[in-house]
């Protein structure tokens, strides 16, 4: 009996360990945002390197949280305008994406490889929530996974208005590049 109990305990512990491997996360994911209009003399581009991302490999659920103040720009004034005039990061500090990988079954998280995925979900930014759908990539390598995607958002969908004066610099759509290296969530 004793032996069985111990064995069972181990089994459960193992199961638990395996269970924990279901979820992957990072707090230092990268999101690059680029809203440079074609004719703009300067790049309207920022990067955030402290994106939180959690992926549940079992269900394919995927969530991101981005602190808007974390975007860094090459020009300090651009950063100021981004925070003050466009995304109003004091009022809407966080942008969230809650969605799922729709073809999660095709991804083998235990085998190294690159898997194309489709992600669909809701993006909440600047007080507005919109459906977003994009193609992405899941790369599995040595027990870690990397999630990347490129998509674009229309700024007016999120009530971010571009004054006519800078319309030749700031594009109506911002290109978003997501790159998150995830580790098992313990």
């Amino acid at each position: 009996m004793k032996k069985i109990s111990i064995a069972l305990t181990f089994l459960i512990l193992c199961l638990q360990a395996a269970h924990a491997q279901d979820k992957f996360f990072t707090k230092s994911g990268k999101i690059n945002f680029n809203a440079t209009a074609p004719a703009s003399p300067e790049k309207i581009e920022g990067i955030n390197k402290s994106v939180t991302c959690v992926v549940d490999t079992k269900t394919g659920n995927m969530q991101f949280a981005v602190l808007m103040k974390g975007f860094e720009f090459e020009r300090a004034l651009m950063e100021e305008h981004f925070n003050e005039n466009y995304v109003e990061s004091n009022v809407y500090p966080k942008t969230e994406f809650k969605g799922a990988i729709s073809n999660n079954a095709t991804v083998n998280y235990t085998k190294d490889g690159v898997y194309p995925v489709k992600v669909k979900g809701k993006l909440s930014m600047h007080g507005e929530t919109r459906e977003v759908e994009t193609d992405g990539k899941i790369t599995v390598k040595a027990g870690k996974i990397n999630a990347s995607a490129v998509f674009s958002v229309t700024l007016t969908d999120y009530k971010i208005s571009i004054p006519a004066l800078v319309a030749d610099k700031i594009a109506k759509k911002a290109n978003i590049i997501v790159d998150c290296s995830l580790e098992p969530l313990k």
Partner: protein
Amino acid sequence: MKKSFLLGSWFLLCLLNFQPAKAQDDLLALVEPDKPKKERVKYAFKSPRVINGHSMEFLNPGTMDFRILHRFGPLDQGYKNFFGFDQANMRLGLDFGLLQNLMAGIGRSNVKKEVDGYIKYAPIRQATGPGRFPVTIALVTGMTMNTSPWEIPEQKNFYTSRLAYYFQTIIGRKFSESFTLQLSPTVVHNNLVANQSISNDIYALGVGARLKVSQRIALTCDYYHNFNGLVEDVTFDPLSIGVDIETGGHVFQLHFSNAVGMNERAFIMETTNSWAKKQMRFGFNLSRVFQISKKKKAK
């Protein structure tokens, strides 16, 4: 006993293991929230100047602010003087952001051909989170030099007579997204004054405020109360009321003021117009910020 203990712990483990998957909806909640960080309160003013006086705000490190200031003639002369536009006094200035809490600038005004320079440093910035502080405290020290020809070239003139200094402490707080208020006790020291009745050291208290009315427009007010430097009916406390308009890379500070001077010595001591006598003038500050050293590009 031992058996039941083992069995019990086994059940406990089972329970632990088969927790309902409540995290489906909120995966993000599984990740420990970041510890709150000290966060500096930014953008208290659109510009490092309220209108005339220094504000609690600093230029970003690596940027240069090219400032063109104009003060027109008094409005009360009407069309004859095209509401003051026939006259203009100006100051050109270059300000540099060195650190997030250190900046310096130089400028030259056509009034008295005066050159001025200053250094502004904030030992404490308003911040939230751990290590928060309710106000920004900034210290300014500046110097002005009158470069116009000596009034009486025949007498022995000393170079130091051209100089004046000012020292200022700015205590400011951004109360909300829209409202900022600051107080700035100031001392102006003149090496040479016009006559004995005027003290070499003038004490003044500045009050600056900003009310943001939209993302790019703010109302501003800049007032200095002079404690011992006013000559009755000749000089007055400078009061400026204006609007900051921000476009892409420019800030326009349009205002009405009774002051002509565009450095601390001049507007605190030599404001010869009075609001009471309706002698205000129109003026503007045009500020253009350039990034001169690139921020380390985020990789």
